[in-house]
């Protein structure tokens, strides 16, 4: 948080995920593994020590057969802006060694693996479980090291990692624009791997501050919501669902509260 | 911890926090130095040792 914490970021990259479209196929997760050199272990069935930068969570409406419904909820790092959008995301403010930081030019929360010493305070702070710890040394059996991408360094044991909105893709696009003497990136020039891979186009990515980008309008959809908005984490990942129970699952409500009514109240707080 | 690491910013939080730290370290350092030097002097002056009394 080097820059003054009072100014709004120039760009705020964010995502809008249409849960009505998402079929839960998992292509986003696999694309992310391949893009970001996420390792795998022989047993990945303990989801609490399985490294995923984006997880697709299966929610049900808890109703008995045949009124049961399921909804898949893809959860990348929410890239929180923090209270009052000052960049004090739950994790950035607690990291003792500045191994995770809020980038004011993009709104993206970074993670520096070589700086992290593995205290896991950020994981305790993140309510979205977006942060994953390298409990094990990563191993790529047989010739699998050959498919590792040089764009993202493999992480060593004992550090925390998380989704970066494929920041390396931003850097590549920015470098290209710089060479071509352009100041602005086109919307399609920078898209994270998960968004690009979504076969049903449920995910939209862009600059939330830029009216020319699709996310600018989408985030204001009447069924748009963010996860745990009431905690004032200010996530930059928005969701759209036509189902009320899904929207209700996105946050916590007292028995007499309902998602719609509260939204204006939460907004009024800052 | 030091002004030359790149995260360092001359803002209020750093000044208060690191000010407190260096203040505490200085007191401890000076206190210890004082004790050691005084003990050296005392030893040279061959002051009689009194057990107890503290």
């Amino acid at each position, binding site marked *: 948080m080097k820059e003054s914490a009072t100014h709004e970021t120039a760009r705020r990259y964010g995502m809008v995920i*249409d849960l009505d479209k998402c079929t839960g196929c998992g292509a986003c997760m696999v694309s992310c593994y*391949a893009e970001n050199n996420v390792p795998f272990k022989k047993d990945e069935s303990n989801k609490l020590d399985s490294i995923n930068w984006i997880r697709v969570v299966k929610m049900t409406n808890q109703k008995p057969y*045949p009124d049961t419904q399921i909804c898949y909820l893809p959860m990348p790092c929410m890239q929180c802006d923090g209270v009052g959008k000052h960049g004090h995301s739950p994790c950035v403010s607690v990291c003792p060694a500045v191994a995770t930081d809020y980038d004011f030019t993009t709104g993206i929360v970074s993670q520096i693996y070589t700086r992290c010493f593995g205290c896991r305070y950020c994981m305790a702070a993140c309510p979205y479980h977006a942060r994953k710890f390298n409990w094990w040394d990563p191993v*790529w*059996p047989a*010739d699998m090291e050959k498919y590792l991408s040089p764009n993202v360094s493999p992480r060593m044991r004992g550090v925390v990692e998380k989704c970066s909105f494929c920041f390396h893709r931003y850097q590549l696009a920015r470098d290209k624009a710089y060479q071509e003497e352009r100041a602005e990136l086109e919307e399609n020039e920078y898209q994270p791997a998960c968004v690009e*891979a979504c076969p049903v186009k449920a995910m939209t990515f862009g600059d939330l501050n830029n009216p020319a980008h699709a996310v600018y309008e989408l985030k204001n959809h009447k069924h748009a919501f963010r996860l745990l908005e009431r905690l004032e984490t200010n996530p930059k990942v928005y969701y759209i669902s036509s189902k009320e129970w899904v929207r209700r699952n996105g946050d916590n409500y007292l028995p007499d509260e309902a998602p719609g009514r509260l939204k204006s109240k939460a907004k009024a707080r800052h | 911890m030091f002004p030359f690491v790149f995260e360092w910013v001359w803002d209020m939080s750093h000044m208060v926090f690191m000010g407190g730290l260096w203040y505490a370290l200085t007191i401890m350092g000076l206190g210890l130095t004082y004790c050691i030097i005084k003990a050296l002097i005392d030893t040279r002056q061959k002051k009689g040792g009194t057990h107890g009394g503290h």
Partner: protein
Amino acid sequence: MKIDRRKFLAGFSACVGGGAVGSMLSPLPWKVMDDVAIWTQNWPWTPVPQDGRYSYVQSVCALCPGGCGISVRKVKSRAVKIEGLKDHPAGNGGLCPLGLSGLQYLYGPARVKSPLKRVGKRGEGKWQPISWDAAISEVSQKLNELRARNKPHSLAWISGENKGILAGLIDRFLKVYGSPNVLRDSTAHDAIDQAAYHTQGQRGTVFWDIENADFILSFGAGLMDGGWPLARMNGFPKSADGGKTLIQVEARLSDTAAKADLWVAANPGTEGVLALGIAHVMIRELIYNIDFINRQASGFEDGVMGGDQVLQGFKSMVLEKYKPEKVSGITGVPVDAIFDIARRFAKSDKAVAVCGRGHGRVAGCMDEALAVHYLNALKGNIHQPGGVFVVADPDYVRFPEPGMDKIAEYGLGQTRVDGAQSEKFPNSRYLLHRLPEIINTADGDSPVQALLVSGANPLYTIPDGKSVKKSFDKIPFIASFSPFMDETAVYSDVILPDHTYLECYRDIVSQGSMDGIVVSLAKPVVRPLYNTSHLGDVIIQIAKALGGYIETAFAWKSYESLLEETFADNWETITSSGYIRMNPQIPGTVATSFNTPSKKFEFNINAGAPEAPFSSAFEKIAMEGDAQNYPLTLIPYDSIRLAGNYPANPPFMTKIIDDTVLKKTHGCIEINPATAKQLRLSEGDAVKLSTPRGEADVQIHLYEGVMPGVIALPRGLGHTAYSEEWGLYGKGVNVNDLMGPIEDPVSGFNMAWGIRAKLTKI
């Protein structure tokens, strides 16, 4: 001064201590600390991927019949990522998790790195690497021997290659050799294609034009569960920016059902009956396509067949036998819902009914396929945009007619070992699932003396694993061409490993579309990693080793030269753009497109008539086992996160399997909480699952989305091969081992959709 021990020690300690204190004041400790921290950031066992020049190779995915276009990112000579290829007609930039995981097959630990000869007992896993010459002579010697014994027809080839040049080479090889026994897995498409043949007289591949449809009525098809390329689902499911209507009929809340506008929870095995109930409502309310039926259909109304015998038509049969009340009783779907579905289906602009459970791995029941196809006829969407098309199979693979010797002619004259294309099942091309029983019940020697397997893993995929294994034990010689150490490869005598699809040229026939068929070209993305050889080249080599006229029939220099020769004028196009479109074979008007004796769409339901494919007594597809001993119904289900067929799930996909499907090595069985309560079972309980065909240990997962009384297991687990590092070894249950096939009386296809089962707490 006398230095005693004490003084020496004191002095020594002082030196050490002083040294320590002194060094603390030097930069040394700080330097060491820094170096140590830097070392942790560069641990030699944490790989650092080499950077280099980037390039992209456009190719095609060969991991399922979808044939989606892929773009492979390379850094120098390494392939680092597979992504969807934009503007490719198949997939259009979208890829499923399986396609995205392709590099794990290429570089993974399950590869067979050179030809291998078995040295231990079968299945023991003891191998000796041998040269390609030796491997080919192993096969050719065996094949020569069979011909010498005048038993060429005892050679069988189980092939996963269905279309294209490789399939053509395999067909040709067996023909020239003298065996009718090319065996391929039958899928739901075989049933629906046969339904189209019975009603329209056209042989080809049925294609549901869901891209142009605005309403899909799906009878259990896993549209969003990986059965179909997800990119084809554009517009489904409905979302904020509009979309089309999907109704899913299924006993279990699958991902497709979850995304549907309406999930119709019909009793499993009664989907076809529901289709007829819907047909009933359409006919009764006169909301079917009267114009089409009147002008283009025959057998709809009652007819007179010479004398006084009245031939019952489809209309009166459906009106009589499939009243909504009765259908509701069978299917468990409320009467209102049947009316509602029928009306919505009938009134939609471009509606299509589709079928094929899950990924469509099991061919299924002809009655059901026909019932769904009839529904489309009632809608009048045959050969209409947004409806059903029969697309002719590609015909670009044309080899010169080979010469044949007496032995070959004799062998070809024998009946097929699986009974397909016989008098009993004249319209079914392959009936692989019948093979084990035929071998196991044969008198004397096995009718299959040598088995070649390519692109398939029959030991895993054919139902009733125990009997499959038993039958394989009776086959004296098994050779596998698999690039992976799969179950069948492990159980073979020789392995002649093929390249993976990322290491060689291969023509891939993608799924059809309204514009015809797309043939894509898989290109060598990387040079072959190991001592493997292209199956096409190996066939040519084997033919060469067999010599004589067989060699002459395969006089190509290599597969690659054959490929180039085959595409001839199209070679330029297919290498540069990656695909070509094959000439659409859809005749322009409906009238000319029906090839039946009446030149009309035939509702051929006449009960008892030998040629009638449809049984008018159709109520529910049969299921094995008695309700007394087996009170529950086990159904297999397909998931997009599990490759249920061949090859086995890659580690990335195993990583995305929910922990409610696989927990450590335990496969989870889905059971409705109400049923579980009756059985006093709770989440996570270890139970024994028994069916008439076998038993397995599973773990309980309570799932509201599965019908009470029904339990569900995923396909694709329970592998006993591939490397342990592949992460699938010994995990979960292979549901194929717990189910036997049930023969459809008309087609001979396996129509088993479930089996009776019971759960006992361990």
